[in-house]
């Protein structure tokens, strides 16, 4: 079965050139921000003489209002944004898979209670709750990851629950149940591996929305705050220099858009590939 998936993946990517471009963009952004320290310019070096310099050979993205090299800032900003995206996705996927599989497998009252809880969380104005929690907690990457992770697992839980419910009636699962295997073992060995494709698709799209949320929070001066650079907080700063230096707002924004669009597209491409099997 695994070979089959790999073959489908290869075929799917061969057909969908845009998905390949998406993967390449994600790889480039991840690698460049992970190895940002190799770029020989200090992202925090303040220079009074070269404030708001236009993009040039020395400063490919120009400099910001404190004369810091904007390309270096963007690389480090990407590090924060991608880190938040990946880690909060992992957190939300873990919670979602646990709640969803328990709910779907156990059914009955447990299912009803968990799902009403999910419904309730999905009725709250998420962004507002994020803003509130952000104001309560100390600002910083760790808390942003926790907040986003805790508020975005519901859709995964719903999807995993649905798939678990349909899988649990399959013969081989019924057989394992009758032969006395523990619930945990059945969920881990027989159910989760089979819904892995769906989980991967949802998780990929979740990275996209987590990055969007982080950037919005940081843009409002919450979330990740200076001196730590993130694309959102850079845009917050850029707002004050729209007339003098519009490129300050262009670069981080385009980078967010590119990243989010790549993850969204990749998620959909994977969905198509998995559905074709």
């Amino acid at each position, binding site marked *: 079965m695994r070979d089959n998936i790999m073959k489908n993946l290869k075929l799917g990517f061969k057909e969908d050139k845009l998905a390949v471009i998406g993967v390449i963009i994600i790889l480039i952004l991840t690698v460049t921000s992970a190895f940002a320290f190799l770029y020989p310019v200090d992202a925090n070096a303040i220079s009074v003489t070269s404030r708001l310099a236009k993009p040039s050979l020395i400063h490919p993205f120009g400099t910001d209002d404190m004369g810091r090299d904007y390309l270096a800032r963007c690389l480090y900003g990407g590090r924060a944004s991608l880190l938040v995206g990946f880690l909060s996705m992992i957190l939300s996927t873990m919670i979602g898979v646990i709640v969803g599989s328990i709910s779907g497998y156990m059914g009955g009252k447990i299912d009803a209670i968990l799902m009403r809880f999910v419904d309730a969380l999905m009725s709250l104005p998420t962004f507002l709750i994020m803003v509130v929690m952000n104001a309560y907690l100390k600002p910083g990457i760790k808390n942003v990851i926790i907040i986003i992770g805790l508020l975005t697992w519901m859709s995964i839980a719903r999807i995993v629950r649905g798939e678990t419910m349909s899988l649990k009636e399959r013969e081989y699962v019924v057989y394992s149940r009758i032969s006395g295997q523990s619930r945990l073992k059945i969920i881990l060995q027989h159910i989760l591996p089979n819904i892995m494709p769906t989980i991967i698709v949802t998780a990929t799209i979740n990275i996209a929305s987590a990055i969007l949320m982080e950037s919005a929070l940081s843009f409002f001066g919450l979330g990740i705050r200076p001196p730590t650079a993130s694309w959102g907080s850079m845009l917050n700063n850029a707002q004050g220099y729209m007339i003098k230096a519009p490129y300050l707002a262009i670069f981080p924004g385009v980078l967010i858009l590119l990243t989010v*669009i790549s993850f969204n597209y990749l998620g959909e491409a994977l969905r198509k590939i998995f559905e074709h099997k």
Partner: protein
Amino acid sequence: MEKILNRLFQTILILFIVSILCFTLTKIAPGDPVLTYVEPNMSEEYINQLREDLGLTKPIAIQYIIWLKNILHGNFGNSLINNRPVLDQILERLPSTMLLMGTSLLLSVILAIPIGLYTGKHKNGLVDKIINIFSYIGISIPTFWFAIIMIYLFSVYLHVLPSLGMRSDGINTFSDLMKHLIMPTCVLTFTNVSQFTRYIRSSTITELSSDYVTVQRAYGMSETGILYRHVLKNAILPMITVLGMSLQGVVSGAIITEQVFAWPGTGQLAVNAVMTFDYPLIMGITMFTALLIVIGNLLADILYVVIDPRIRSNG
């Protein structure tokens, strides 16, 4: 009918959980709430008395019941900053938000239906591919960034549209309001229309490949006839559910949009409340918004059952 009753019961349960979540959020807020009432020359005794009067010494469950009772009576408490009733402030701001969200949702649906139908019918055609790229941009673009780019382009650079607020100073005309409405609506609509188009496109594709369409084709019905007389209705129907489901996202989008454009709605009120740590106001808005979202979802479900005979007969 049983289905609707069941759904009503679920809704009450959801609201109950929402209220507990909201209450917990107020309780875990940092800082002693009594401090906002304390003045420098108050004695220790008086402060303790105040704490008791405010009900802060009672068990947490009792505090919750009192809080819930007040909310059910429409009493969301008073703002810590200006001491005005929270509900009054929300209701005062609500029309602006409704104007923005309503205009945007209406526009999104009106645009998404023909675009979705067309692209679903001409799947993988040139138009479909172009629209597909735009809809990916629509769901991926950071709302606030799109907003500041629009402001730069149309207010700073071209000077054709006002950048902030809902009305110009001292001018109270319809056209002035419309001018202010254009940019925030566009920002909010772009995301919504992208999402809705994708739903309608995919349900159009599903409907077009279903059995009844094949039968109609075999009877010699024209393609446009099939599209308008049968597919249209069945493809739009799920939009009711999609609209209900998208409310949460639309509210988040509206909060961001209002903030960037300084649109005087509840979203802006909420963000300001957070910045000034005005807890009663924050909780009031959260609870109120959740209530609207839950009711919106409920209405969507009921409407769906009323309109779609297939579900009615099964229920």
